[in-house]
């Protein structure tokens, strides 16, 4: 077997029946994909379908438990990212991975900077090459500035520049467009197509079907960590893809129960934070679920954090049931019966090493204490009650929450906040990284809470979730609310259009 590709050379890169587990959690049950030179291959699937695990396996960060990786027909094993890079594989991750202290140019070339004749990094050449890359991408980024404080879109562009400069034979892009505007997406596509025409094999992951169909030649669908099917892009419809991705009817996934909508609970007027968001006006009523949609980086989480009093704002007001809330005071917000379930439950929502009981009762410490000491039996009783109500599946209440699945962890976070009896609840990406089965349970819970008269603000990047759950949908784009749709009027196309106002194509 030769390693030089010929006319009928084997596929450039292939994963065959790769599996990967983390403890009891199976992240990848059957990772199979065949990337061919000169073709752009889309990988679609819901969050938690195993796409990112597959990407990290290709990148050499995860080592598969079983199955094989093949490069030009030969089995390969990567021990780390450096080895996969040396093999000509370049990966753009979902989360940009830049070095904030280094200059933009150095971020692109770190580890392979151009050298001058003394063997030192040639900064002039490095800047020139970075400038050339940016002009090819058509973006005005100063190569000398530090990467700290760059917008997510600019960070993503630097990642792309990095990948291009590597002249990779295999390019993997894990949701590269999530934070980009329409023009930037078009530019990225032009670059991807020219790389493809030069014979690169490209793997493209996106949640936006319009992009998948505009760019890709082949589409592979994954569900629950397993390979489902591969199609020629010209021979499949969006509906058929969605059916394969979801594996069941969407309507049963989001069991929204109708709730009686009451008075305004939370009122936000003219909220402004320079450079982050501006002119934010909205109300949330009792029993209402307001969906907050938009692209990553549109400022949704920032608004929620300012409303809850974690971050400061420059002007505007937040009122809970008629009483104004002081900015920068989460304590006031909690006292006013507000609750905030953050996006990153591992870092912000839970103390991973503490037991289910301790985590659930974390917000109740004062109520449970007698003479300043927390009663263990009352703590256990309170925790049991909430765990039962939310159907948290755990071997024992005393197990550390880190042993639970993502969905059950999320239920513990919810339980923790529900125990404070809130009137207004903010949930940020409530089902990110949660398997499909538990997802529906989290949705049922949120819907039930609204049914009991709690006002809910739900930030979500998943359109089906927003469409299925929300009574009203606000869309943010670049720090402003660009649309406000009642449930009946909202469609995926309208939301996407409002989320990317300068996108030429919304459908």
């Amino acid at each position: 077997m030769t390693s030089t590709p010929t006319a009928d050379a084997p596929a450039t890169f292939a994963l065959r029946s790769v599996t990967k587990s983390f403890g009891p959690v199976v992240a990848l049950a059957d990772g199979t994909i065949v990337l061919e030179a000169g073709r752009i291959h889309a990988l679609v699937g819901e969050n938690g379908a195993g796409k990112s695990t597959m990407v990290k396996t290709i990148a050499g960060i995860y080592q598969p438990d079983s199955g094989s990786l093949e490069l030009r027909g030969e089995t390969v094993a990567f021990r780390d990212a450096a080895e996969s890079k040396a093999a000509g594989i370049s990966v753009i991750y979902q989360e940009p991975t830049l070095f904030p202290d280094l200059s933009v140019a150095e971020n692109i070339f770190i580890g392979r900077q151009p050298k001058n004749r003394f063997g030192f990094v040639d900064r002039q050449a490095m800047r020139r090459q970075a400038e050339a890359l940016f002009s090819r991408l058509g973006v005005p980024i100063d190569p000398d500035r530090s990467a700290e404080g760059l917008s997510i879109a600019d960070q993503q562009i630097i990642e792309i520049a990095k990948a291009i400069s590597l002249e990779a034979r295999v390019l993997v892009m894990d949701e590269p467009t999530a934070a980009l505007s329409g023009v930037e997406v078009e530019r990225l596509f032009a670059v991807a197509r020219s790389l493809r025409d030069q014979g690169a094999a490209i793997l493209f992951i996106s949640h936006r079907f319009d992009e998948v169909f505009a760019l890709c030649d082949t589409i592979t669908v994954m569900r629950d960590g397993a390979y489902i099917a591969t199609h020629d892009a010209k021979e499949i419809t969006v509906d058929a893809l969605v059916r394969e991705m979801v594996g069941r009817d969407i309507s049963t996934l989001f069991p929204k129960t109708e709730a009686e909508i009451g008075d305004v609970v939370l009122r936000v007027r003219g909220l402004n934070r320079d450079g982050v968001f501006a002119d934010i006006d909205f109300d949330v009523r009792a029993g209402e679920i307001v969906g907050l949609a938009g692209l990553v980086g549109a400022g949704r989480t920032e608004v929620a954090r300012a409303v809850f009093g974690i971050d400061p704002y420059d002007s505007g007001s937040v009122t809970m049931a008629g009483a104004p809330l002081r900015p920068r005071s989460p304590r006031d917000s909690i006292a006013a019966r507000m609750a905030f379930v953050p996006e990153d439950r591992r870092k912000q929502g839970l103390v991973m090493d503490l037991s289910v009981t301790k985590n659930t009762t974390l917000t109740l410490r004062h109520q449970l204490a007698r003479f300043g000491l927390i009663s263990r039996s009352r703590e256990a009783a309170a925790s049991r009650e909430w765990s039962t109500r939310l159907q948290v599946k755990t071997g024992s209440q005393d197990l550390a929450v880190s042993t639970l699945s993502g969905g059950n962890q999320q239920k513990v976070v919810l339980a923790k906040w529900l125990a404070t009896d809130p009137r207004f609840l903010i949930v940020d990406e409530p089902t990110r990284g949660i398997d499909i089965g538990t997802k529906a349970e989290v949705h049922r819970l949120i819907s039930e809470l609204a049914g009991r008269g709690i006002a809910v603000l739900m930030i979500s990047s998943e359109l089906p979730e927003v469409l299925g759950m929300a009574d009203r949908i606000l869309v943010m784009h670049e720090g402003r609310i660009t649309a406000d749709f009642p449930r009946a009027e909202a469609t995926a196309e309208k939301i996407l259009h409002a989320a990317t106002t300068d996108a030429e194509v919304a459908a």
Partner: protein
Amino acid sequence: MSRVTLAASPTRTHAPTRTFFRGASRTFASREFSVFAALAILLIVTTVANPRFLSPQGTKDLLLNSAIFVVMAVGETLVIISRNVDLSVGSILGLTAFSTGAVYSAFPHMPLIGIFVVGIVLGGILGAVNGLIVTTARVPALVITLGTLYIFRGINNAWAGSTQYFVGNDPQEFGNLSAQTVFGIPLLALIALAVTVIFALYLYGARSGRDLYAIGSDPVAAELFGIRVRSRVILAFVVSGALSGLAGVLYASRFNSVGADTGTGYELQIVAAVVVGGVAIFGGSGTVAGAAIGAVLLTTMTGALAALNVSKFWQQAIVGVLIIAAILITKVISLRNSRRLRVSEAKAPGAAADDIEATHV
């Protein structure tokens, strides 16, 4: 492609002047410059108050006293930039300084070069132990090197017992090292300067040196990007150990007597010098030059306060204030930068970079 040429040419016309001004303003805004300014002010004020402070002998003492700290601070800088810390440097200095005495008592005719090789290699091995444990156990270096601080010191104690070696005049040529001058500058200071220049160039220009900044800036991203994090971090610890070993040899030459507690407590002074010199304690930014100036500043401070008849007790408090001030300045600059970036980027996307102070290197 014609659009590219059009877009690129105006930038090129302005580039030299813009780069010059930006370069100049970066120099003055840089942390190294402000530490240097603090050092200059301190020297001027002290000399005005007590002219004997900068007499030829006073200057020479200052340089000799600084030299050993500078050498150690340079090694510590590499470690701290990679988001680690080496607390064992004082113990490594002690162990190598004592070895110097032991080697000379066993081989009185050891050539000078041999004793330097012994010190540097022994220090490097001890540093490698630090690096291997830190990267294998994946436990914060603070804890590991706190452990090796005691282990190395313990070995030194067990080995030395109550033995003291007086190597400053036995052999005489070794003791003379610290008295020699080249064009009036003490040899030790020149060694420290050479070490600083070599590692300044390394961190500025070598790929593996740049990797250290990347690792300290974001270790996870460095791993994702395929940087050999483990070997780079081990290298930083080896350099720190080897330079502490070199410092141990210099110490033996300069201070004559070495025993069980030589170098005790140096680690905190070294970390202080590095931080005061503008190296971020959580890694990713700072320079060897800054750390070296920081080491000179702290040494000068001690001398200056003595020259000004300030009580010894206040000297420590003032060093403490300097450390906290250095950290607060870093924090304020980075907060101000991020706010300015946020606001200016919202107003004019892409045009924000020009008025930002250089916090990166």
